[in-house]
Every structure is written in C-alpha cells, then in structure tokens.
C-alpha cells in the first residue's frame, strides 16, 4: 500500500500538471494582489482591466491570477508580471489607468515602465 508521502507526491505532481496545462513556455503570468488591503486600495478595478483585455483578445498568451498580500502596503495595489527568462517585474500603485498602460506598453510593446517598478 502506498504511504501517505507517496500519495501526496502523486497529488503534488497532478497539481503541477494541472497548472502546467494552463501555460506554455512563452506564457506571460500576471498576478494581481487581492487581499483585503489590496482590494481596499482598488485592486478589483485593476483585475477587471486585465481580465477585460484577456477576454477581448487584446492580449494573448497571458494568464491572470490573484495573490495574497506580499506586505508592501504603501505601494498597493501591486501587480507582478512574469515573463519567461526575465526577473519578475513588480509594479506598485497600479490603478485602472496604469493597468491599461502596462498592457499597452509592457505586455504589447515590451517596454518596461521603469518609474512604476518597485
């Protein structure tokens, strides 16, 4: 009979497979902070902007996810952009307007918006 550790390892690799099925080698991952503090700072609007851009097909190959609070209260809402082969880009004080610009400039044109980086 399988030990608990063997059963768990099986479950872990299934989980990793499920996560991997959502992405390819070139997928860009966008994390938006969605803890109470981030939401209070306005992250729901930011989430909506990214969600709309993905749903409308404006940006492709992007996976959107929520995350908890990383602890940078004074820079919330925060957004991280994971591009394969790059150090994760961490944006602070992202409102709907900034989110739109990040989509236009960074995600579509590959321009890193230095002044908003944390």
């Amino acid at each position: 009979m399988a030990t608990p550790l063997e059963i768990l390892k099986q479950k872990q690799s299934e989980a990793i497979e499920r996560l991997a099925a959502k992405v390819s080698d070139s997928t860009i991952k966008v994390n938006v902070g969605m803890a109470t503090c981030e939401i209070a700072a306005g992250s729901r609007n930011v989430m909506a902007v990214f969600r709309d851009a993905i749903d409308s097909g404006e940006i492709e190959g992007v996976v959107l996810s929520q995350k908890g609070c990383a602890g940078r209260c004074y820079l919330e809402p925060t957004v991280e952009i994971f591009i394969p082969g790059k150090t994760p880009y961490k944006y602070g004080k992202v409102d709907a307007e900034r989110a739109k610009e990040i989509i236009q400039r960074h995600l579509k044109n590959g321009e890193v918006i230095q002044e908003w980086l944390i």
Partner: protein
Amino acid sequence: MEPKYTITLCDAEFSSEHSVGLKDAFEKAAKANSLENGLRFTTCKTLGLNGKGAVVVVNPGYYVYGNVTEELVDRIVAEHLVGGEAVEENLIKEDHLFNRSFKTFGDSEFFGKQLRIALRNCGNIDPDNIDDYLANRGYEALAKVLTDMTPFDVIQEVKKSGVRGRGGAGFPTGLKWEFTQRSQADEKYVVCNADEGDPGAFMDRSTIEGDPHTVLEGMAIAGYAIGASKGVIYIRAEYPLAIKRLEKAIADARNAGFLGTKILGSDFDFDIELRLGAGAFVCGEETALLNSIEGRRGMPRPRPPFPAQSGLFGKPTLINNVETWANIPVIILDGSEWFSSVGTENSKGTKVFALAGKVVNTGLVEVPMGTTLRDIVYDIGGGIPNGKKLKAIQTGGPSGGCLPVEYLDTKIDYESLAKAGSIMGSGGMIVIDEDTCMVSIAKFFLEFTQDESCGKCTPCREGTKRMLEILTRITDGKGKPDDVAKLERLGNMIKKASLCGLGQSAPNPVLSTIKNFREEYEEHINEGKCRAGQCQSLLSYVINDNCVGCGACKRVCPVDAISGEKKEAHLIDQDKCIKCGQCYQACKFKAIGKF
C-alpha cells in the same frame, strides 16, 4: 537599457568577511568581459543558508551560488552571464520551504532584507487554488509526519526547533504540545487563534488571506501529534475575505483528502471548522476565546486549569496563533536544526511585524529574531518621512510599550524587548515621530483597552477607567501635581491584580511612556504645554506682527474671539478661543502662531 542581470549579494554575518570585495570582483569581471549594460546590484540580509559561505543570487532565473569566492565570480560572469550556462557545481539547488517569496521579490531591497518563513507563500500563490499550494510542497509536511514520524517524534521536533508562541506571550510551543499530548481524554481539540485585535495589526489576516492552507496543515500536524481529531479556527467576523478563503481552503482540503477521515490513506482523522467571533478584543485571550467558541460570553477564567488540561468543552485543548501554525510545516520539512539556526539564543526563527505609523515603507515585514529595531525602521522601513525626527517605537500594540530612540539597537527577541520595557506582542510596530504627543498615544491605547475590558474583574474594569480619567485630565490641561504618581500606582496595581492578560498588560503603554518620557507628562501638568502641539486644549493661538488686518481669521472664527479693525493688527481673546484652529488654517500671512 536596463542591465540584463541582477546580482544579489547576501550580507549575512556568516559571509560578511567574504562579501566585501565580491561586488568589486563582479564589476571588474563584467568590464573585462565587456558585459552589455553592466550589472544591477542589490543586497539582502540573509537567505537562511547557514554554512554555505558567501551567497550570491543571479536573476533572472533565481540561481543561488554558495561559497562564492573571487575566482568563482570570474567563472560566473564568463560562463553564466556571458556564456549563458550556469556554473552547475556551485549552485545550491535544495528546495527549501522558507524564503520562497525570494524567488519573486528577492531583488527588491524591501524584501531582500527579510527572511520569510510564515509568509513564505504570501503574495506568491493564488490562495484560492489548492494546486498552487501543492506545487509549493504543500501538505508535504503533513504527509511526512504521517509516513515517517510518531506523534512523539513530531513533538520532539517542534520542541527542538525552539519555536515560541507568536501570539505574544512567547510560551514554548513544543512544551504546550507536549502538555496537551500527555493529558488523557477521549477527545482533544486543536484551536487556531485568529482573533487579531490589536489596532493596526494585520499579520494574521494577511497570512490567512495569502496562504490559508498552511494554517490548516499546521493544525492537522498538531492534531496528529497530540491525538486530536477536531480543530477549530476562531476568527473575527470583521475579516470576511479571510473567512471566505478559509472556507474554500477547508472545502478543497477535504476534497483532496487532507482533512476528514483516513487522511492520505493513514488511520488519522482530522477535520476543521470555523467559529466566527464578534470582534471583542478580550476573545484573543485563550480562556475567553474558548468560552466564546462554546457559545458563552467571551470572558476569561482563572488559570489553572490550563487549556492543555481542561479547555474547549472541558477537553484538553491546544491553542496556537495563526503565525505559529504557519511556522509548523517549515519546521517539519526544513528541520528543527535549520529553524533553530535562525534567531537568538532563546528566540528562534522569525517574527512578522505590521510596520505602521510615521515610516516611509509601511507594510508587513518578517525578520529573523535578533534583528535590531534600527534595521526595521531605517533599513527596511526606509526611515521617517518629511525629514522628521524619530521619537519612539511602540511594539506590542495596546499591551506593549513605547521605546525611545536610545533603544534603537535593541535586538528583537522576547527577552530583550521585555528588558527594554516593552513586549514582543503579536507583532504591531508603530513608529512615532516628534509630532506625536506621548501622553496622547498612551491615552489612545488606554481608551482602547478600557473600552474592551470585559468587566469581569475589578482592577481592570475600574482601574483602567480611573487611569483614563487622569490621562484625559492631563491632556485637557487640568492635570494635578501628583497625577503621574497616581498613574504609576494604579498601573502597577492593575498589572498585579487583573485576571487575564488584557488587564495585566493594559497599563503598559502608560507606564512605559512615564518611564521614558516623564518630562512630557510633567510639561503637560506643570507648564500646560504639549511639545508635539497635539493636545488641542493646551495650545494657544496668538497673532504676531505679520498681521496685515485682512480679516480672514475674524470671518472664520466660530466664537467671535478675534477683534481688530481692517488693515490693523488683530487680537485673539484667549478666554473666548476654543482652539479650533480655523484661523490658523485661514491665515495666508503666517501671522498666527501655535504655542
């Protein structure tokens, strides 16, 4: 163009002798190899990799190099940064549970100076997706104890780690587990105290909202260790999102077989339910919390018997705080030996603080025990905004104390903070600058505890009320000469005679400010002066020579206290003035002084 690579140099004690010069070596090698756009450097405090010599992280890709020498730097630059092939034999590839957030956030100075154990997944994973937790070695600690360890082994491991209760009192966690395990009963309970009540504290909320499964896993491990099959999380109803995430996490964990019967094919049964509290501060006290779970009024009762003997519904009960639970999976997987290598002699591991107040980088920080207050306020916190001077640091919330600047180099651990006259508490840390009146801040905290006193025992119920009256009198400018002595006598009496931790610690903010800022109390009482300019009643507004007689102040004064003809100097009648400050705001000529 931005540099392609970021080099993070770890400036921990164990490697400081090496790390000097490493930066130079990198720069020299980068030049010699004519690396495009140069390099970006950041520093970090420690990666928790004791005994690995100088540690350097290369991003992108999160390559961690150990035992870095100047020769190795040359190879890293030539082979990795220019050639694109990492120097395999010097890479540290162990997949530790601690500091996982470093992969995403490590190259930012704010995070680089922290060491994350309890918050390792916060901000990195989707808290609503159990797959994300599993992909980060989630529930592996639970599987490990069910496979390889006896309950006795688990308790020994927790004891050896040296972890102490993160809720504030700092009782050794392993001992608590052992006591509960030894109690004989047909049923036992594991309880998570998520009744976070300190004003301005949000450590537990963030942990649950960012990584709810770690709390469940920690509790399940404890259930196995002490022989309990039921767990209860007591969380305040004011945390709706945290509750929602916990409910989802519990449901997902049940579906996946991490909670319920025959967990992971073993004979171990354990399930967790939520109990919502209405938000009374006293319910964070363990016996009051148990009463509240049982459906009774949230009031403390005398100890002994301790919950380990007779707790929830009279059964042996193990209560730990959210942050303590979040540490447990790390202790099991990374080992007690590693865990106890972090921290000071008697305080092991890390502590999460909610850094707030007059500091540039407010936020949630997790640092190794033994970090100094100065490191937190200036290094991580970025100092005081607007060029103001630091006056004090308040730790421990309404149960803690205010430490003046002389204590900036105090190391953060349970004993040092207590010796300095404050407490670790659950992790509130408020930075106070010169514009804050220490009497007012003491009054603020006492107002809170006075309001939250449950009323069961007289010293707390009556004593805090009397203390608050005296403090109000002082800030209103009606203090009496012996008020400070009275506050001290009352405070010490309340501390000694109160039933529970709330009353025993309620006078701390007052006593510690008297100890460290007595002169401010005396100024209020004897000279009617508030040096921070915060106590409205002690202020007087006076018009000076800058007055051009425009009449702006006269028009806004709600009590007609200002007189004077047009284009002539005006005058404020101090007897009529109610110190509302409207004239001060209205004057465009800096003609009104605030004293």
